[in-house]
């Protein structure tokens, strides 16, 4: 409980209840960490002069799965009346986060050179960045 009190004190006053907040934060961190991991994998492939492989796309699919869970949590949160301060802005960012990886993955996979790995690297880092922005919007930071 004590740790929670400290964290609540740091955040803006309009934050959702503690438990939901922890779930949101955990999901954001999971997506960001997975994105950095995928970016690292892609970066390794760039260095090795290799094209994107199917397993990396599965990695992207796992990230998409967690992003979808984020969307469900955001809907639940909105239903409880404690949604993001600016829902339009939040869902705009969410939609962008959701579509970037599938489009980039398809676009990358059609290219059979190392440049496809660069595409995946850029897309993964973009999603990680968007998660950070979503955190700011979600929490009204």
């Amino acid at each position, binding site marked *: 409980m004590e740790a929670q009190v400290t964290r609540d004190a740091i955040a803006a006053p309009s934050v959702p209840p503690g438990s939901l907040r922890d779930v949101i934060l955990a999901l954001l961190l999971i997506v960001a960490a997975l994105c950095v991991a995928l970016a690292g994998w892609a970066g390794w492939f760039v260095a090795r002069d290799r094209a994107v492989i199917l397993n990396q796309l599965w990695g992207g699919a796992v990230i998409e799965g967690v992003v979808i869970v984020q969307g469900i949590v955001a809907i639940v949160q909105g239903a409880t009346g404690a949604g993001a301060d600016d829902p339009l802005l939040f869902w705009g960012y969410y939609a962008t986060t959701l*579509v970037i990886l599938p489009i980039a993955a398809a*676009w990358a996979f059609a290219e059979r050179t190392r440049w496809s790995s660069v595409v995946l690297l850029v897309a993964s880092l973009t999603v990680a960045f968007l998660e950070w922005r979503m955190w700011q919007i979600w929490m009204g930071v």
Partner: protein
Amino acid sequence: MAGQATGRRAGRGFGRVLVTVYGILAFAALGRSSYELAVKFDEAPVAYALSTLAAVVYVVATFALAIGTPAWRVTAWITVSIEAVGVLTVGALSLADEHAFGESTVWSGFGQGYGYVPLVLPFVGLWWLWRTSRSTSEERTA
């Protein structure tokens, strides 16, 4: 074979990365301008109209670079040039007068809000268009 790695078409090889970054910027600009138009257009019509123009140009440039047929290449040349002029003009004006457009735009401060990507990208785009057009003509004569 070296031509295959760099790609004859604008959307191949390094062009894949270029189109990806363009696409992301197009998404960012489009999202931003839609939001501004929907929520607060009256606050700064000039700035938000400019954001919308930038967004449309980025979207068209993304498709033009990706498709890369001769007609689309011309479109790419035009749109990427507009971006270069736009970011330099708006960037300089916003630097001279912070409130030149009422509010900040994608191109304000030379694209500062987007990690200067809007400043760098059009010139990379022009270089890439120039480069791929050269290799195309070389292959025709060969």
